[in-house]
């Protein structure tokens, strides 16, 4: 290991004896990053990174940006241990987690298997905190896994059957935290703290019960409790309720560079909550050092202009990792039976897809820089199949009309609009969240081309929340959203999101509810394809070898491509990422995705540094 250097930021504290020296703060075996090997440069510590969030809840993004996970994705999307020293996987069902001895929470307390135990025994299985019992991911085929804590640095998760989702889950942008700072949380747990002290704390926090208090203080993912110790590179240092949140470096962070400098390089992250509409202006004014959230493709020209006008930033163009930039979801659970019938006809959906002039949209909205095609895995994914992307995706009004005629929708109104079987004109109402101008513009173009099919597109912008509720309730006919969040699946990625298991897929909200609520709500999926998807997802869960999984994945993608559940328009649209000119190690090219990727997470902000940190601070 390289000789360790004391962190300048904390030097004064160390000198005053408030903080142990660097050698005592790091784990025995810190994670050493060889930046040169990664093609990055070594940096110096210091500086404040300014960035913007768009809603007050965005504080939680810092836990994604920091991206310290037990295991995490590397920049090529393979899993590797991070907080853990190592993971042993046996038959895909037994996971032995090896902690780093000497690893400490940000308050200096040791991070040991006790913290896992606290979560497992006193959080996950405590009837007051989690009345519904252990979380779903601990069940495989209905069987609850077991957790063992053989020594302070080892934790073993074990199931009778394979649980391929376990590690990817831990690497998610918002993972289930299966460990908790037990030394901190115990003071809010009735098992460990007397009712007197607890009661005082409860009244002080103005909550009603100790469990509520515990829940409130335990905000690993919300990341809004500055008192709660963390393992992330930066610690929240501000109380809630203000629009500027400061995050200071974690003195006990477990990663160092190969020269012995503790990461993160940047001392302070300053996240300011601003409204979405103003972020471009603020960034243009040079108020951010690293910003992608709240910026969209249309902002590029003004960002570039600001750059040309002497702005102290560069605008990088990353690719968006969502499977589709714009996708139309015909709601197969739409409450109107006639429409439902029509939409469930795959020919109808194919016709709609054929009726979209993707090239035109690409050119008009994205300078032709996006990829035209249906919704499927992105080219960077090993599961990418060009045929899936191009299936029914070429603009062909003739084909589309033929398909529609074939269904029997031949009657037309005077204006040339086709009639539904019950005689109503086909007014296809597409609801949007009304947030993105591109969507409206794209729909304007689609309106024209669909008119050639005899379908009248009616666009209806709503509020995001209202839209969601309407979709879930089966009230909206069709909606527009991004494609799958994860456009970069590998065979190891769980394909559950391809199957009707989640109401968030706007094509089948009710089927998703049915699965999610275990049959209590929603409707049972109908038709062969959806059920097949469910079956395949299930098989994937039980498959052990990569090959079967790959085949299953390919099959499922193919079904989606053929069934056109979502009419993808284009993908990989450039995502502007604004980077201060002094900021180093930011990849020129990258994928902008939340899961997997945690936005900047996989790109490891802790390795970014300022060329001249002190000048930056002064400025």
């Amino acid at each position, binding site marked *: 290991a390289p000789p360790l250097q004391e962190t300048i930021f904390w030097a004064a504290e160390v000198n005053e004896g408030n903080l142990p020296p660097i050698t005592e703060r790091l784990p025995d075996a810190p994670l050493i990053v060889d930046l040169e090997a990664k093609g990055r440069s070594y940096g110096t510590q210091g500086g404040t990174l300014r960035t913007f969030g768009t809603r007050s809840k965005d504080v939680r993004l810092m836990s994604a940006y920091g991206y310290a996970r037990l295991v995490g994705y590397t920049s090529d999307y393979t899993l590797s241990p991070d907080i853990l020293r190592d993971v042993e996987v046996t038959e895909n069902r037994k996971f032995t987690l090896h902690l780093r001895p000497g690893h400490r929470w940000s308050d200096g307390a040791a991070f040991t298997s006790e913290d896992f135990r606290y979560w497992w025994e006193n959080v996950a299985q405590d009837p007051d905190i989690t009345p519904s019992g252990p979380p779903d991911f601990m069940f495989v085929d209905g069987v609850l896994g077991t957790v063992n804590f053989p020594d302070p640095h080892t934790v073993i998760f074990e199931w009778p059957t394979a649980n391929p989702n376990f590690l990817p889950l831990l690497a998610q942008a918002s993972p289930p935290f299966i460990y908790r700072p037990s030394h901190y949380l115990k003071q809010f747990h009735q098992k460990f703290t007397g009712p007197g002290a607890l009661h005082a704390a409860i009244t002080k926090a103005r909550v009603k019960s100790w469990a509520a208090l515990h829940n409130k203080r335990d905000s690993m993912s919300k990341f809004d409790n500055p008192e709660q110790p963390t393992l992330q590179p930066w610690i929240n240092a501000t109380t809630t309720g203000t629009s500027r949140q400061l995050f200071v470096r974690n003195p006990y962070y477990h990663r160092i560079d190969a020269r012995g400098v503790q990461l993160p390089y940047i001392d302070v992250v300053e996240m300011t909550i601003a409204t979405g509409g103003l972020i471009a*202006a603020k960034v243009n004014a040079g108020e951010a050092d690293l910003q992608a959230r709240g910026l969209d493709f*249309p*902002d590029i020209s003004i960002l*570039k*202009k600001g750059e*040309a006008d002497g702005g102290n930033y560069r605008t990088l163009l990353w690719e968006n990792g969502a499977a589709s930039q714009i996708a139309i979801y015909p709601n197969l659970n739409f409450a109107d039976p006639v429409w439902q019938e029509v939409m469930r006809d795959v020919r109808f959906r194919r016709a709609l897809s054929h009726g979209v002039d993707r090239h035109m949209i690409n050119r*008009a909205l994205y300078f032709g820089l996006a990829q035209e095609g249906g919704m499927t895995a992105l080219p960077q994914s090993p599961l990418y199949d060009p045929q899936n992307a191009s299936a029914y995706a070429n603009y062909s009004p003739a084909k589309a009309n033929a398909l529609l005629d074939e269904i029997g929708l031949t009657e037309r109104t005077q204006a040339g609009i086709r009639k539904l079987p019950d005689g109503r004109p086909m007014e296809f109402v597409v609801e949007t969240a009304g947030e993105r101008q591109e969507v409206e*513009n794209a729909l304007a173009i689609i309106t024209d081309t669909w008119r050639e099919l005899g379908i009248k597109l009616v666009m209806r912008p*709503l*509020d995001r929340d209202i839209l969601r509720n309407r979709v879930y309730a089966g009230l909206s006919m069709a909606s527009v959203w991004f494609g799958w969040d994860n456009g970069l699946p590998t065979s190891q990625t769980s394909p559950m999101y391809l199957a009707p298991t989640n109401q968030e897929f706007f094509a089948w909200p009710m089927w998703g509810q049915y699965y999610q609520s275990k049959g209590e709500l929603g409707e049972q999926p109908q038709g062969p394809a959806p059920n097949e998807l469910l079956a395949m997802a299930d098989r994937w869960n039980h498959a052990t070898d990569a090959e079967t999984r790959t085949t299953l994945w390919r099959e499922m993608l193919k079904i989606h491509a053929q069934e056109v559940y979502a009419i993808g328009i284009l993908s990989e649209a450039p995502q502007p990422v604004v980077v201060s000119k002094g900021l180093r190690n930011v990849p020129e090219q990258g994928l902008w995705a939340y899961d997997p990727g945690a936005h900047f997470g996989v790109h490891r902000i802790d390795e970014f540094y300022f060329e001249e940190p002190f000048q930056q601070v002064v400025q």
Partner: protein
Amino acid sequence: MSTQPTNRFVDTTPWVDTPDISVPERSDMDAPAWRLMWRSFRRHKLALICGIFLLISYLILPIAGFIAPYTPNERSADYLYAPPQSINLWHEGAFIGPYVYPITAEADLENYRWTYTTDETTPLPLRFFCEGEDYKLFGLIPSDTHLFCAPEDASLFLWGSDRLGRDVFSRILYGAQLSLTVGLIGITVSFALGITFGAMAGYFGGRIDWFLNRVIEILRSLPELPLWLALSAAVPSNWGPVAVFFVISIILGILDWPGLARSVRAKFLSLREEEYVKAAEMMGAKPGRVIRRHLLPNFMSHLIASATLSIPAMILGETALSYLGLGLRAPAVSWGVMLNDAQNLASIEIYWWTAIPMLPIIVVVLAFNFLGDGLRASLDPYKN
């Protein structure tokens, strides 16, 4: 004339003792009130010009399709964000009639903009009474003849084109059809209610006043926002944007009257104490008449100014509502919709012409203002 000592002065022009009651000019006496008003209105040149301008604007509305070279949603994929083109008459010293230079687009991937080069060597004359896209004259008669069109294989964007290559000029013409009409209904509703209730409260006072005032207070205390939110979820999906906007403008009118009503009431509370109101009542004038003939004219200036002021609100009301998903939206075209599209930095800094719709709004609003002021002045007895 003779001036005698001690300043004595006696007029010496012959004096006849006849009461000077000359033959009345019958025509003048018989002139109905509107003719008298028109006569004094005519004297306000600016107001007259504005009135004529507005009249023409409204007359153009039904034939906007004929005048506009493009239809509102006609996209030219090759001309995105094209800057305004000028129409020239002389080329290299020779008069060749109205023509444009062809422009070609190029994607500038350095700055992520479309850049246009103008070929100044080949003037392309405009076509007149030419065929273009279909539209409906007066909203009824299908036609495809346009007053003027772009030359073959070239474009004619007088005021540039927008993100989808739609002609801003044509869209403004079409947008006027909605912007200048639908909102008027809201204004009418609100004025009708406001004046009626305000007049009742102010003139009758007492219990009616108390009751109407409580109604006003309650209406004003009630929040509009939840109403809009509820509405945006409740409006049937397949309603066209214009229908939605129509309903909304009526609702806006219904919600909007209390402000006016209170002003009217306050003024009437004061005016009703005037002697001439007493006089009219003592002649047997019924409340309706007193209000119409005696009270309202004395508040006319305020009403005219208020009406003028609601014009921009009527044109732009939708922009605020579009944040709640209730405003007008594509494919409907209105000035508000166009400005909504322009509400980003790029439109301000780079594609300034997409913000041109502000121009007609300002012009129309000012025209209404001057017209209103002329009207006010011609009603002003002291200026006659």
